[in-house]
């Protein structure tokens, strides 16, 4: 019986073990399925963000096209003249002495109550560290010190070469960081993990320090401070966002003006100069190239080394030229601000071949504006020319060349200078704007409107020609913070974590020792993600992505409606899922997996068919109270809102955030002509009235743009059922979301979870 007992025991023991194993397998099988579905959601959420960014970049092209349209078609009436000249004119002409006076900080007094850092120059390491600490504690540097620091930076940058050359001798490891985009938390995290810049710890920063994030100026000040303290160990590259016109669109200008209400304009002007003086590329040990965007098949470092980089102030402005002419302007590097000059319009050098379907892009590249602008503003240039000082002798040769180049339709003589100018500009655009692609070749970068897409063969050729082994670039967000391509010869490095949304991606930096083998460190600024589990993270990010996507869908309502109605010929108001998906892709061209996404975008179907009118209602835009504003017009304005906003900000020359009613009206009328849409005066008035104006003939740009924000309708509904809004007017979105969120959370979530109030508060805050 003992044996029997043993056998039975064995048998049951094994059975239990077996059972446990089976249970484990089951749980594993189940969880892996769940994780896979989370992964898909994470993946398409990422796709959405990327395609949204693509769509967003198209706005830039819309801006170019709009400006180009103005130039091509506009002989401004006397009333419109002001506006156009606002859009294209730069500030007053200044000479060195005048600049110094303009940027002078000496008469700015710092009040005693100011508790922030008080800098003394020359800076030292302690002050730089102190500055970091101060910003960590959310202090703001006084404008006096800002200007002083920037002036010192400007002085230093002007003696730096276009190509930084760094060496890893003395066993120094070099740390390289990618895009930061105003996300101070990430820079602090990098310093925390890696140490601050010093003699033993050299750093290379690869551009795009500003825009999008909210602490762009702080990042710049920190980087410049370390540059001043350790000029041999801190290297800064220029990114495509180090460009004042881009800053108008993407938030840096706004940030500076908000933080520095009195001196912001001067600070921005000085930064404009500083940006143009930032070096273009960095080379380590003559083996590794670090550049913000990338290369093209014509990139030539020898040429890059020779350019006058500071003449290329903005991607949207052609370079200054050192030549006078009868109807043209003289521009010497430091004496005058950039002027628009006349170039022969022979079609862009960058894109010599027609590029097929994308006609608007083909017609107009970043380089094409100059000539038409000159014609329109001929009078103005005449005035400036008279004000100019120039020496004829040195420029008589180029004078001849340029005067022939003035007649826009004539064939150019080999105007070598004009060629060089164009060529140099293209070189710089390529460095700052290009993206790698997987197939061979080199084609214009139509998504960004500048630079190109370059293939593995171009990388190979470039590395061989210059005897290099690796290209490190940034410019594109990567989920894991970095990504290799082109057979590990090109590395994309991105240092702004949670770029699209909390949890969307990690950031990374890389260390290179004398062996030049990259060592990566990844991170994610987690003050918001701490405490969220992986599925919760995915869902948060997904929610934001879908919200943005719904916006896009709504904005294209008219086109989508026509597409649906084309399919639904009997006008039943219903459409099946497949047709819905293919129609959307036809209209939006976002290349997203619509069928996979449909449960998130469509609340219900009957018999597998969607009631599309009802669906549009669900996506609705929160309109200004007036019903007279036509849907299509609102949609169109919404679609072009970033162009509108950028124009407003350009026109707002005193950077007050207000533009005159007249300029506002003018801008809308110009836009309506361009879009071939009727925007009558009544409609414009309606638009103005429905946003809260000061009734003093001026319009607050921010308030106006606020009207184009979409409301999360589902949240709104839940909030509404529990609390009726007091009035019918345009409620602040934040209030609504607060309310809706509160009630939604309370009733819905509580039911399912054992609930912690502190957790609720934390999430609510997020």
């Amino acid at each position, binding site marked *: 019986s003992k044996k029997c007992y043993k056998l039975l025991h064995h048998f049951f023991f094994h059975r239990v073990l077996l059972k446990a194993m*089976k*249970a484990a397998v089951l749980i594993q099988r189940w969880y892996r399925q769940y994780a896979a579905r989370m992964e898909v959601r994470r993946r398409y959420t990422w796709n959405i963000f990327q395609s949204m960014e693509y769509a967003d970049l198209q706005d830039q092209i819309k801006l170019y096209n709009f400006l180009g349209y103005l130039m091509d078609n506009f002989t401004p009436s006397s009333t419109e003249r002001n506006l156009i000249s606002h859009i294209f004119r730069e500030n007053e002409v200044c000479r060195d002495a005048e600049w110094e006076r303009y940027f002078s900080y000496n008469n700015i007094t710092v009040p005693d109550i100011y508790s922030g850092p008080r800098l003394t120059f020359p800076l030292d390491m302690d002050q730089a560290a102190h500055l970091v600490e101060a910003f960590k504690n959310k202090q703001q540097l006084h404008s006096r010190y800002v200007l002083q620091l920037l002036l010192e930076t400007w002085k230093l940058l002007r003696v730096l070469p276009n190509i930084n050359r760094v060496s890893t001798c003395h066993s120094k490891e070099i740390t390289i960081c990618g895009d930061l985009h105003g996300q101070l938390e990430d820079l602090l995290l990098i310093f925390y993990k890696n140490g601050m810049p010093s003699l033993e710890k050299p750093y290379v920063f690869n551009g795009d320090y500003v825009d999008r994030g909210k602490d762009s100026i702080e990042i710049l000040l920190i980087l410049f401070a370390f540059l001043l303290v350790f000029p041999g160990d801190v290297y800064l590259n220029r990114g495509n966002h180090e460009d004042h016109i881009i800053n108008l669109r993407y938030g840096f200008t706004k940030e500076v003006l908000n933080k520095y209400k009195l001196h912001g304009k001067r600070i921005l002007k000085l930064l404009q100069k500083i940006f143009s003086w930032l070096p273009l590329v960095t080379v380590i040990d003559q083996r590794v190239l670090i550049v913000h965007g990338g290369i093209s098949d014509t990139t030539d470092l020898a040429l890059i080394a020779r350019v006058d980089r500071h003449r290329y102030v903005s991607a949207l402005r052609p370079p200054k030229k050192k030549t006078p002419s009868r109807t043209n302007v003289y521009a010497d590097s430091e004496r005058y601000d950039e002027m628009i000059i006349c170039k022969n319009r022979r079609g862009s050098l960058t894109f010599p071949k027609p590029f097929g379907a994308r006609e608007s892009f083909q017609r107009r590249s970043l380089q094409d504006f100059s000539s038409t602008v000159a014609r329109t503003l001929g009078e103005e240039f005449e005035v400036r020319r008279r004000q100019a000082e120039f020496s004829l002798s040195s420029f008589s040769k180029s004078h001849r060349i340029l005067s022939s180049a003035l007649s826009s339709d004539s064939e150019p003589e080999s105007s070598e200078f004009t060629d060089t100018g164009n060529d140099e500009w293209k070189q710089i655009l390529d460095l700052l704007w290009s993206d790698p692609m997987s197939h061979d070749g080199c084609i214009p970068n139509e998504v960004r409107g500048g630079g190109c897409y370059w293939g593995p063969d171009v990388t190979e050729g470039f590395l061989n020609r210059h005897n290099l082994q690796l290209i490190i670039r940034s410019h594109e967000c990567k989920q894991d913070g970095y990504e290799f391509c082109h057979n590990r010869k090109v590395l994309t490095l991105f240092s702004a974590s949670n770029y699209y949304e909390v949890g969307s991606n990690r950031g990374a930096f890389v260390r290179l020792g004398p062996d030049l083998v990259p060592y990566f460190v990844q991170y994610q600024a987690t003050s918001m993600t701490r405490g969220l589990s992986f599925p919760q993270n995915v869902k948060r990010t997904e929610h934001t992505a879908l919200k943005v996507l719904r916006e896009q869908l709504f904005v294209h309502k008219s086109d989508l409606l026509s597409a649906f109605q084309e399919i639904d010929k009997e006008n039943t108001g219903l459409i099946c899922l*497949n047709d819905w998906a293919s129609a959307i892709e036809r209209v939006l061209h976002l290349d997203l997996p619509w069928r996979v996404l449909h449960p998130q975008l469509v609340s219900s179907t009957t018999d597998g068919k969607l009631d599309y009118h009802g669906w549009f209602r669900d996506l609705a835009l929160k309109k200004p109270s007036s019903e007279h504003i036509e849907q299509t017009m609102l949609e169109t304005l919404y679609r072009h809102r970033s162009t509108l906003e950028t124009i407003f900000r350009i026109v707002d020359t005193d950077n007050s955030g207000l533009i005159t009613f007249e300029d506002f009206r003018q801008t809308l009328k110009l836009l309506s002509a361009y879009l071939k849409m009727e925007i009558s005066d009544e409609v414009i008035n309606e638009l103005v009235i429905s946003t809260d104006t000061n009734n003093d003939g001026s319009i607050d740009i921010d308030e106006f743009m606020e009207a184009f924000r979409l409301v999360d309708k589902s949240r709104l509904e839940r909030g509404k059922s529990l609390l009726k809004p007091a009035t019918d007017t345009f409620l602040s979105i934040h209030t609504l979301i607060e309310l809706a969120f509160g009630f939604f959370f309370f009733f819905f979530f509580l039911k399912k979870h054992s609930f*912690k109030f502190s957790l609720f508060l934390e999430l609510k805050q997020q």
Partner: protein
Amino acid sequence: EVTETSKKSIVTFSEIHHFLLSDTIITETQKRISNAFDVFDHESNKTVDVREIGTIIRSLGCFPSEADLHDIIAELEEEEPTGFVRYEKFLPTMTKILLERKFRPITEDLLLQAFEVLDQQKKGHLEPEELTKYLTQEGEPFTQEEMDEMLSAAVDPDKNVILYKDFVSMMTFDDTR
């Protein structure tokens, strides 16, 4: 779906058979497969990394084990493995899997039972170490990453245990959202 169309409460075998093989259902299925495939087709050239196959199959609602996947992948790979799977090969295999309803879902009850088996002392909860031991050592072991991910969602932050009943109902609820 079949009962809806015929409005009876009993379904005959021939109806199921007919339904399963009807054109619409095949096209629908293939469209689903194509869409799921596209999410992972990064180069837009109708190929996906072989390491993503498991995720794709699971995203289509199947619950294969790792061993099942191993077999499927062996079938899908080229004679000379390239590390990529082409759509032309994937589609017929996946269609068959879906039409035959292989790798059926695991119900909430079954899952709960599995947790109860692991909870030998019948405490009503599991310690993180316990669960970790089982899932990283038994069956088709989790990687540390997988284990960490699951624990982050499963462990009750106050009591530091896994209340598996709640966990299961929360996860299955999530699925339906």
